[in-house]
């Protein structure tokens, strides 16, 4: 039938232009009155937030790139102190037999980190280590210590320049280095083992009454090293100029065998609310901490947060799902400024009922960060906003006996001395708020 051709041609023509996808449909901005929306969103901020502080028994402080040295008095954290222990080695233990030691200097490269007042006169004491730099346990912690010679080799008085200056230059008495230099010349010391037998390392400490600041130095061997300046006296010395080849032998931190340095970071909180914390399991609830919670890197104080009534969300009428859950916490007004700077972000982790870190990630996708910067709507104070959606959803499906919590800690928790003081659940005005946006799709 010839008509069949007509059918085929026209079918093909129009079927091709047939599909109207959703976006081809006219789109109109019509108002609410035209739709029967079946989904509505509500915001709830009345769930209880319970806050407390605890202290990690110990934290690893031998990873990273920063040597922390200093001491200052803190209103909330007491006497805060950090010392650096390090073992120094070199690559080539070779010195010509006729070399003469001229001087020794310890060069400490600033890495830009500082905490508290750098305008204060600071002191660094250099001590000789009397013990091998070997950990008693599997690692070095902020609570680790080794014996050292209590009489310092030298005490350096200085005004820190962590941002402007390149490095701190500490002159070491030549008398300390001469015996070692001779042994190297004689080739009695020809490798690391020989060397560390004679010279176990040094400890850099603030003075015992120091109240100034904590400074960070890099452990990069290019910028922080113990330098032996030596020269080879020339047979002929025509000019009177001190022209002799100034040769150097540098010893630095070289973590070939793993652990070769650590920071010992401690604080004395006698007389302060934090005093009550003994073990990691102990908690200082914000109601007993003056309505505040505390966070401090280095020493290991973290804020713990729980949402004990969150399961009541099931009481809401209808069926719904959580679209977002954000925890807002306000740092104590006037507790931070340029010198006691506040972290821009805080890491969020989950701990169990004994305050041990849980493997569960609050987000399932990676580390969650609370960001600082937005201001809260009510008081206009800057706040931390911490997304906790994944954690809350997990809490809702968990058995009620499980007693997890969230903790907040600054980045660089193991390599700095940053503090955050937050308003806790005790305060009426700035107390933490959990803001949940809930979508109800079935009434």
């Amino acid at each position, binding site marked *: 039938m010839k008509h069949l051709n007509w059918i085929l041609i026209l079918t093909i023509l*129009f079927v091709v232009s047939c599909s109207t996808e*959703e976006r*081809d449909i*006219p789109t109109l901005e019509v108002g609410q009155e*035209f739709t029967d929306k079946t989904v509505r969103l*509500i915001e*709830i901020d009345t769930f209880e937030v319970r806050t407390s502080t605890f202290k990690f028994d110990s934290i690893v402080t031998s990873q990273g790139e920063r040597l922390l040295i200093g001491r200052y008095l803190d209103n909330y954290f007491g006497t805060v102190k950090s010392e650096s222990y390090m073992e120094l080695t070199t690559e080539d233990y070779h010195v010509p037999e006729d070399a003469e030691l001229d001087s020794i200097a310890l060069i400490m490269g600033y890495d830009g980190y500082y905490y508290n007042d750098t305008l204060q006169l600071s002191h660094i004491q250099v001590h000789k280590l009397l013990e091998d730099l070997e950990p008693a346990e599997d690692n070095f912690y902020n609570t680790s210590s080794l014996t050292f010679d209590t009489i310092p080799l030298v005490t350096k008085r200085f005004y820190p320049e962590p941002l402007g200056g390149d490095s701190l230059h500490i002159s070491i008495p030549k008398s300390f280095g001469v015996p070692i230099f001779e042994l190297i010349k004689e080739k009695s010391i020809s490798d690391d083992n020989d060397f560390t037998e004679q010279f176990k390392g040094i400890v850099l400490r603030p003075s015992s009454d120091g109240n100034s600041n904590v400074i960070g130095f890099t452990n990069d061997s290019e910028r922080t090293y113990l330098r032996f300046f030596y020269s080879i006296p020339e047979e002929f010395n025509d000019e009177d100029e001190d022209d002799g080849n100034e040769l150097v032998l540098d010893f630095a931190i070289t973590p070939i065998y793993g652990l070769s340095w650590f920071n010992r970071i401690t604080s004395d909180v006698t007389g302060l609310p934090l005093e009550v914390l003994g073990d990691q399991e102990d908690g200082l609830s914000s109601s007993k901490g003056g309505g505040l919670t505390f966070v401090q890197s280095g020493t290991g104080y973290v804020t713990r947060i729980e949402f004990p009534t969150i399961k009541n969300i099931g009481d809401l009428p209808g069926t719904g799902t959580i679209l977002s859950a954000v925890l807002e916490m306000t740092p104590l007004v006037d507790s931070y400024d340029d010198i006691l700077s506040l972290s821009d972000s805080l890491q969020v982790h989950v701990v169990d009922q004994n305050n041990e870190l849980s493997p569960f990630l609050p987000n399932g996708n990676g580390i969650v960060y609370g960001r600082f910067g937005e201001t809260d709507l009510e008081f206009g104070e800057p706040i931390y906003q911490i997304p906790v959606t994944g954690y809350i959803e997990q809490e809702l499906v968990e058995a009620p006996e499980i007693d997890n919590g969230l903790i907040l800690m600054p980045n660089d928790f193991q390599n700095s001395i940053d503090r955050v003081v937050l308003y806790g659940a005790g305060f009426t005005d700035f107390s933490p708020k959990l803001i949940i946006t809930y979508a109800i799709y079935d009434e």
Partner: protein
Amino acid sequence: MVVGQTNTITASPYSLYGIGVNTKSSIGRNSALGGGGYAFQTIDQINNHNPASFATIPDNNFLYDFGLTAELSSISSRGNEEKRLAGNISNLAIAATTGARSGFGLTLEPYSDVGYALIGVESNIEGSYDTFISNIFGSGGLNDLKLNYGYILKNRLRVGVGLSYIFGTIKETQRIQSQYNSLEVEDKNKYSGFRMDVGLQGTISDYLKFGFTARLPTSLKVTHDRRISKKVSLTPKPQVVENTTGEHLPNFDLPLELGLGIVYTPSSSWAMNLDYSRNFWNTTDQNDNIGTFIDQEIFGVGIEYAMDNQSINYWKRIKFRIGGSYDSGYLEVYDHIIDGYSVSGGIGIPLSRSSKSSINISYGRSEHGASQGILVEETLNTFNINISLVDIWFLKRKIN
């Protein structure tokens, strides 16, 4: 299995309600003649409006009908205007005699259309000063697969019965955006059901014929699938919150529809048709969203002219058509009843000198709704192209 039309042709926001808007396209010549045709007989063109019309298919004739529709719509609301063009197959139909006194037809037509997108609906988050945005999309429609049988009862009286299988899926998707989080609720309603209609056609005199149909009320079964997923804080993959299938919803009732029409043919050149139908939505007692379903009346009139319908001359058999209709509307929204009217015109061109097959082209313009206040006014320009093929069986085989 026949799938029917799966594409939306109507861009009408009124298709938001119920099962959508009734489609305006139809088989054969009817779209040009006010959409009516209860009294037309299926002789050289299939008339799907009345099952009794299939009784008069000439012996050994086999008819095909295949139609395409394009719709250019212009929708305005509060000064905003949108234009869209959409195309679709409008129908497939076949019909044949089953004897000297009877005939049957099988037709597939869209029954209703849903196509809308509401973008940027802003709503308040309760308990906060923030708002969230909803985008709502609807698509789909119902199809009518009908088997018609007509029988010549007496010389001037023909009866018919039709059995329809009405089926289709209507999908509504709601997407909610609030800061970096989003929620998507996708609802699919699957409708299915059978419907019977009966028809009557009679010849009053050589010039006057009448037709009457009753589409009996029926209940369509509705099953509901729902899929809810969300994306929280820029996570790449959506998380499924709920996924239920096969939930039974209350049936959707289609009302009793009565139709009455007459056609007046004073000569072989002129034919005029008048049609009236009433759909009894009130008794179904249904409402949807913010509209209530109310009784609907449709009036249609059409005039067809050809120089000489019986002529062998090809040019004299070209038909010119004009028509108009008024639909009182089946929706009452906020005390406004959404009515509409349309005018149409078209031509029927014979395909060849010898056969009765033809191409029908029609253009119709309809207006709907009200623009003052909150409602939306739509103007639809519909083009129909439709091929009516008449094949003479058996005779052809003899020749071969």
